[in-house]
Each structure stands twice: as structure tokens, then as C-alpha cells.
């Protein structure tokens, strides 16, 4: 986690947001949302600044920031991946899709990859149920996802390109070529529990 030194922290973004909402206490949630958009997460100095400027107890701001699921008090990656686990998506096996995304990125929900590129979250329902199972990367929505399409969909952001919707062809060829190596070596498709022992 990067240092968040009060002396050198850039408060201009949060100050601008608070001004936009006329420093009104009741807009606390919208203020925190716009602030999170500006900083990509909610570092502690920012929460303290909001509390100070709105004349609210820090405990209240913390209460709100931890109550609502969309706020992150941990640093988030450049790209936010959300796998929908709403009922329609769940019935169409979103759990397996989520497993594949976890495997591919090497992280679990609420975590960020070591290179700070991706954060993974699940969301209860995005309202695109007829296209289940659904996954989003930032603002882009990928319909009818399957575990096979995951790698392809991640290609563009991994290469620093804009996330596109065309990359939904299954990457079958790559998986076939990825034959299990000689025994002893772990493949990409190794059972999840092996990663857990090494990871966070």
C-alpha cells in the first residue's frame, strides 16, 4: 500500500467534490462516491478530510464508508472486474466463471493483483439478467460469459489497451496447447487450494 502522508497528500480532488455538493452533510454518500471515482479508492486521509470539511464525526463517515458495499477502503487496481452473482447469472453457473477469473488472476474477491492492474469484486445483480452470466470490466459489460472466454476478455487491458466487447471468442486453442507439463510443475489449471497456501 502506498504511503499516505498527510503533508504531501493531494486533497485538491476531494476538496473539489465537496465544493460541488455545497458542503452539504446529507450528500455524504454522493460525495464519497465522486471522491472514490477521483482517487479510485478511499484512503484514510480523504475520509478525515471529508469529516473535517462537513463537520461530521470521523466515526460517522467511517460508518457510512464501511456500510455500503461499493466503497473500498483498500487500494484498487486500475481495472475493476465485477462478476455478477445475481440469481439468473447464478443459475447459469456464474460460480464457475468466478472460479476461472480467480484462477486466471490469482486473487480472490476484494483483492488486487500484485501488479495493481486488477481488482476483483462480485456484485449481486447488474440488471442484465437475460444475458446471464454477466461480467464487467470497468464500464464494459460482457454478456453470456463462459470460463473459456475469460482469458480473451482480459487480453486488451493486460496489454494496456481499451477494454472491448469483441473479445468474447473462446480462447480454446490456447487452452489446448497448454498441455499439462511434466509432473511436479503446476499448470494454470491447478486446483485453487494450491494457490491459497502461497498467496495472501
Amino acid at each position: 500500500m502506498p504511503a499516505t502522508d498527510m503533508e504531501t497528500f493531494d486533497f485538491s480532488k476531494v476538496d473539489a467534490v465537496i465544493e460541488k455538493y455545497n458542503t452539504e452533510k446529507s450528500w455524504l454518500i454522493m460525495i464519497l462516491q465522486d471522491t472514490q471515482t477521483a482517487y479510485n479508492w478511499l484512503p484514510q486521509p480523504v475520509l478525515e478530510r471529508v469529516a473535517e470539511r462537513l463537520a461530521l464525526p470521523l466515526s460517522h463517515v467511517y460508518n457510512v464508508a464501511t456500510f455500503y458495499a461499493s466503497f473500498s477502503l483498500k487500494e484498487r487496481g486500475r481495472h475493476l472486474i465485477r462478476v455478477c452473482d445475481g440469481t439468473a447469472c447464478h443459475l447459469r453457473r456464474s460460480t464457475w466463471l468466478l472460479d476461472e477469473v480467480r484462477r486466471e488472476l490469482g486473487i480472490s474477491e476484494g483483492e488486487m493483483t500484485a501488479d495493481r492492474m486488477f481488482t476483483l469484486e462480485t456484485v449481486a445483480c447488474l440488471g442484465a439478467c437475460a444475458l446471464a452470466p454477466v461480467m464487467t470490466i470497468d464500464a464494459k459489460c460482457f454478456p453470456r460469459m463462459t470460463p473459456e472466454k475469460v482469458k480473451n476478455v482480459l487480453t486488451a487491458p493486460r496489454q494496456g489497451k481499451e477494454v472491448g466487447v469483441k473479445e468474447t471468442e473462446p480462447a480454446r486453442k490456447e487452452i489446448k496447447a497448454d498441455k499439462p507439463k511434466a509432473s511436479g510443475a503446476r499448470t494454470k489449471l491447478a486446483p485453487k487450494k494450491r494457490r491459497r497456501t502461497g498467496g495472501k
Partner: protein
Amino acid sequence: MIKSVQELVARQQAARENFYSKKVRLGVGVGTCGLANGSREVLDSIRDEAAKQGLGYAVRGTGCVGFCQAEPMVDVLVPGLPRVFYHDMTPEKGRDLVKGLAQREFHPEWALMRLGADCLLVETERRLVGELNGLAKVPTIEEVPFYRRQLRIALRNCGFIDPEDINEYLATGGYTALAKVLTTMPPEEIIDGIEKSGLRGRGGGGFPTGKKWRSCREAHGSPKYVLCNGDEGDPGAFMDRSVMESNPHAVLEGMTIGAYAIGSDRGYLYVRLEYPLAVENLALAIRQAEQEGLLGKNILGTDFSFTVRLSRGAGAFVCGESTALMASIEGFPGEPRAKHIHTAEKGVFGKPTTLNNVETWANVPVIINKGWPWFAAIGSEKSKGTKVFSIVGKVKKTGLVEVPMGMALREIIFDIGGGIAGDRKFKAVQTGGPSGGCLPESQLDLPVDFDRLTEAGSMMGSGGMIVMDDRTCMVEVARYFTNFLQKESCGKCTACREGVRRMYELLERITRGQGTLADVDLLQEVCEYVRDNSICGLGKSAPNPTLSTLVHFRDEYRAHVVDHKCPAGVCPALTTFVIDKDTCIACGKCRKSCPVECIRGAKKVKHEIDQSKCIKCGSCREVCPVDAVATA
């Protein structure tokens, strides 16, 4: 700025003439479903081609017409001809369509349906007749099973107009109801009409809307607030999303009429964060309505003012509950309170408040225009009007349907929804979101309305309808909903916070093969406790999914705890997949779909699953063309 009713009528007339002008008009569905399916590229391609050919066509984005799986959808309105809807369009087809239209070539093979009149625009009926030019092969909307039985009141205009242009709403007669109310109907008459219409809250509570407005009008306190509940959190439900994205002015007009009736001058539209397009389109609609003098100060030149502000949710299902929503607007965590004092008397900021759902508000202008007797003639005895349902899950046709209340579940799922996907067997339908329950085949003839499903142990709720087939484990469904609810519990009251968590733990044990019969009995007991002791609707109805499955599918629970088997083949710990050697045709589809490559086999060699590596995902069973994969 429109400063009088006469000016409004003139504007509507001009807008209508422009809409049905000599120009060919194309619309591409750019609601969330459409965009997810690539409709932005289709819109760009059509626009570019029309510009390239110098055709002077009006090309714009429209909302969602409700048949989500057929997106991207394009509709074409050639002057003098029926409106035609095309399905599953691509940028290439879009280009070809534009080229074809210049030669009066309509590509009927891509068409879904045609409309003889814009009959779905409830306020306006306009006949469009003329030479059919090869369109005779395209079914009319009355012949398309998905649309045939629908009566689109709340969903009017969705997919037909550009939600980003207020003039298209005006062209359909929009804001006529507001003008009528402000100039000819005193508040008492409005409330009386809404009461007599029988309109009940469409968010699921089903509280009589007129009664709610009346108690707010009579409450003491000022200012009074009018709120719109756009926090559609039920997984599987997206009716409100469609209305907010595709016909936002209908909601604004309804709210303004309500505000006038109860004596309010301000309000909030609370929209969940996960609906960014709805937030955008509503924000734009508010700005445009204010510019035209149809919202804000001195509406239509009268001395009535009503201002609306948008408030976003932040990812909490509980904020769909009225008092939690109000707490959220005030900048607090969404913790509900017991409603000994109704929110009509003390609501947001401690003031009298009227909160209604998006769909409820969307119905109001139509009731005003057509009169309450028209509305009261639709539906069943105690549930008047129509209801929008989202049919999703294991059904052939997924999307949004709006039908009169009282239609049987069977008709909705089989006649409109087309029956079970893959022609598999129907097992259950889950209605009402996480507050509802699962109903088996024996209950399929129940009419869908506010009261009948509740009697059977489920509820109509906000209208989510999730269809399940024989490959769905009902115990796992109960576990899934309970997991969702325990995460979303606000934590305030012990019964819900602790009880739902315990329910989840018991269900988790059962699905992992560690449960006993005693656990099932304990589960029943905890469910009843939570139901009877929670403060708000979330807790009170949290046991519904579990209790309804215990009533209708108890044998599945027995199988899990006594036989240690999951009959549907879903719970990994209780499932073994085996390929039947006699049925297997060695096509290799299962082998290719297996994410852990645990299926051995080759062409003409029967396939076999390596049980030591199998992760029980069921992909092989999904893709097998001959149903050779069975549970052992």
C-alpha cells in the same frame, strides 16, 4: 419554455409531425442489454452508412423493447408503412439494411415483427397503413407469442422513442396528464381517482397508492417530499431499469402529478449505483424538462413548482426498504426503522413523505389520461392494472413482459416465455426476488397478483420470475438466497443479523454433505423465529426461499442429509457425474468443454470422466447432445 397548456399542445403537435414526418426513422436499442450485445457499433454503422449515402434518415438510439436476448434490435419507420422491428442485428446487417431501404428492400428475413399501428404508445394511436412491399411475411405483433398477450402500460414507449430527446416523449402525448391535472383537477379529485383505480405499489409491497397519497396530504408538516424508489435490488429483476433508461419522463411526469396531489414542492429520485445508464438518462430528462418549464419553478406557467434531485445508491440491497432509502438520502447507513410512525407522516428529514416505486409512478399519467374506470377494468378483483415481469433463468425467451394481473403463471412461462430452455422439465419458478419463494409445477395455475402467490408461500414482489429446470437444486437455491440476504442484512436487529447467518450456516452444511435431519428441523425453527422477530421486510421475508423449498421440495433435503446425494447434480460434494457408455457417441464435446481436462476419450472411443480430477462443474452435462452424462 412552455408556459401554458396551449403551448404544450402546439409543441406536442409539432413533435408528432416531426416524428411521423416524411423522413425514414431508424432506432437502435441502446439500453444496457443492447449495449452489452454490441448495439453501439450497430448504431454507429447505420448512422455512418446513412450519412455516406446522403439519405437524410433520422437515426438515433432508443431504449429497450423488452426482448433482451434478441438485442441488438433495430426498428424502422418508413412514412406510410408499418413499423418493423429487426432482431440480432450486427454492424454489417445494419449497413445492408440501410442500403436496402433506399431501394425499398426490407430484408424480411431479419425482421421479428411489424406493427400495424403504434398501438403500444398508450396515449397515441396512429394507424400506419400502406403497401407492404414484401413485409407480408413478417408476423404482426399480434402473432408473435412473446408480445401477443402483453398490455404495455408502464412499458409504453420503451424501445419506441429516444429517451434522450424530450420531443419524442411529447410526440406520444407526454405531459398531457400533467397539464390536465394542473389546470382542471383539484388535488382531492386526483387522489380520489387514484384510489378508485385500485393502483397498488408496484415495488412489491402492494400498498394502495391512493391511500398513501391521502395520508401524506393530510399529514402535518412542511415541506413534504415525493420520492421515487429506483433501487431495484432484487437479483433477476430489471423492470425499473428499463423504464428509467427508456422512458424517464414517464416517471418524472408521474412524480410531478403526485407532488401536486399531496402538496409537495420537492423530491428525490433514488437510483441504485449499478444502473449508470438509468442515472444518466434520468439526469438528462430532468435537465430537459426543467428547460421546457415542465419541471422546476412555475410548471406550465402555473404557480406550482416541483424540483427533483437525483440521489445514488451505494451498493446496499436493504436501501430498497423505504426507511432505509430515506436514511441513505440523508447521508446515513441504510438501517430501517420500525414503522410505528408511518413515513407518510414522518419520513425523510422527519417530514411527511410519499415514496413510490418507478413502475407505480409510470402508471400515474396513463390513469389520469384514460380515467380510473379504464384502469380498474384491467386485472383481477383486488389487483388492478398490469404488472411488468422479468422472465429469466431456464426459459426459452428471456426478457420483460407486461400483462394484466391475474394471468396464470403457466401462461406467462409457457405461452409467453416459450417453455423450458432445451425442452427440459420444469421444476420450479422463483417469484418475488429474495423475499419470495419457489413454487412447483402443482402451483402453475395460480393467477399472478398481489395476494394469490402470497397465500401459496411466495409473493409477486417486484416482478422477478426466475424459471428453474430439473438441473436446479432447490436446497442450493435456498442456500444462495440466504447467503445473499445475510450479506445484505444491515445488522441492526438480532433476529435478522444472527438468525439469517445461522440459516445460511445450516444450509451450507447441508449442501456440503455434512447436514443431518436434526439440522433440517433446526433450520425450520430458525426460519420461523427470524420471520416473526425482524424489524423490517428484509428480515421478515428472508426465510421465504427456505420455507417454501422446505414445504414443496422436502424430499430434496432428505436426499441431501439421508442419502448424501444431490438429485439435481449441483452440489459438488454430493454429486458424481458418470458418462453412460451405451449412450455416449464419442463426439468429444464434453472433453473440449471440461475446464480441468479430466475426460478421457477420442473419436469412436467412449468417453470417461476421471473422478479424481473432476470438479463437478457440470459443463460436460450441459454440452452433451445425447444426455449421456448422468448423476451416479
